[in-house]
């Protein structure tokens, strides 16, 4: 049966992709950020997941406002990044696991989460940057697991509630655990933490709130479901709503997790950047 090893969170800021391309790892601006990743590389080398479920939010590449799925699951054999409008390099495709995708879709809909299934899905920086952070050289890293992207809407309100996001993760856990194949799974929750790109409040970052979220997501994620969506925009910034991805990931990890590693740094681009490694308790 499939087994969930743990979850990893990271911000997925586009500028990180450029910094990786330019190998700016020792640059004084970037070093405090990239220093957060070697302990995660070590853990991945030790645990060797077969499948990565990459929970991210599309930013206007895979989906447009004509049809905006609240929750979408990739069901393709491979996923390609595409030009997002600023001419980033196109990479070779990321291999998927369509068989497992369809199992998850079946189980999630049976659990009354109404999913948009995607046999083609262009993946943007929200998916690609974390893959490159965790598996350097991706998609050309032999240890990189097969990927299943899950995207939640944070582009247009109404966005899901934090409670719904956590419950989505709990249903996802049951769906993964009922997969008959013997695969080891790691869950990514990408995006955040606090940032706002638009409006006269652009540049808003909230360290206190980010630190509260990083603490509670380990010990008491249920407490975070008390935060309303409006309050999330107010406290995390208009794009800080990406924290929903962290909640989805957390729900999939079970009641108790061991926090093995964390890093937090302000600013990366306009964002409070948070990285955490949470191992499922035995």
């Amino acid at each position, binding site marked *: 049966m499939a087994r969930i090893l743990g979850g990893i969170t990271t911000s997925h800021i586009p500028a990180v992709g450029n910094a990786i391309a330019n190998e700016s790892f020792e640059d004084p601006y970037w070093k405090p950020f990239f220093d957060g990743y070697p302990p995660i590389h070590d853990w991945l080398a030790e645990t060797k997941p077969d499948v990565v479920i990459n929970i991210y939010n599309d930013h206007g590449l895979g989906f447009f*406002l004509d049809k905006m799925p609240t929750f979408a699951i990739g069901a393709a054999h491979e996923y390609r990044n595409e030009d997002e*409008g600023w001419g980033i390099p196109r990479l070779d495709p990321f291999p998927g696991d369509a068989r497992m995708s369809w199992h998850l879709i079946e189980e999630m809909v049976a659990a009354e989460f109404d999913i948009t299934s995607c046999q083609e899905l262009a993946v943007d920086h929200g998916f690609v940057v974390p893959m490159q952070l965790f598996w350097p050289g991706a998609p050309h890293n032999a240890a990189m697991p097969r990927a299943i992207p899950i995207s939640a809407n944070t582009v247009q*309100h109404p966005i899901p509630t934090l409670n719904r996001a956590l419950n989505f993760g709990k249903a996802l856990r049951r769906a993964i655990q009922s997969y008959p194949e013997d695969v080891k799974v790691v869950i990514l929750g990408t995006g955040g933490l606090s940032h706002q*790109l638009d409006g006269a*409040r652009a*540049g808003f970052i909230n360290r206190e709130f980010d630190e509260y979220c990083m603490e509670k997501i380990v010990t008491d994620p249920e407490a975070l479901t008390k935060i309303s969506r409006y309050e999330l925009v107010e406290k995390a910034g208009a794009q800080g709503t990406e924290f929903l991805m962290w909640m989805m990931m957390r729900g999939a990890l079970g009641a108790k997790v061991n926090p093995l590693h964390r890093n937090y740094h302000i600013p990366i681009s306009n964002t409070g950047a948070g990285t955490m490694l949470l191992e499922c308790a035995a």
Partner: protein
Amino acid sequence: MEFAHFDHHSPIPGTTLFDGAMAMKGYALNKMCYSFNAAENREAFKADPEAYMERYQLTEAQKEAVRHRNVLEMIAEGGNIYYLAKLAGIYHLSVQDVGAQQTGMTTEAFKQKLLDAGRA
């Protein structure tokens, strides 16, 4: 078109909730910006912005905002920042340049504000 139940005017200062009402208002502008994912469309816009905006049937207010390269005006006309970022890319503006413009600061001062947030 008016939908009373959509009209929850955001009281968070400096923040526009991009909801159904804004998504309807900004549809043409955002659709144009979404087209900029393709390099050939970016070239077509650069070659003749007026014709390109006409093709996507932008409102006059949206056209004016684009002509002024004014992000706050674009947001007021229903622009969503994720799509507007693709237009900003055509002008080689970073998210810090865009932030600086919206807050009435120089890009250097805006970057300093972000660094200061890390020291708070």
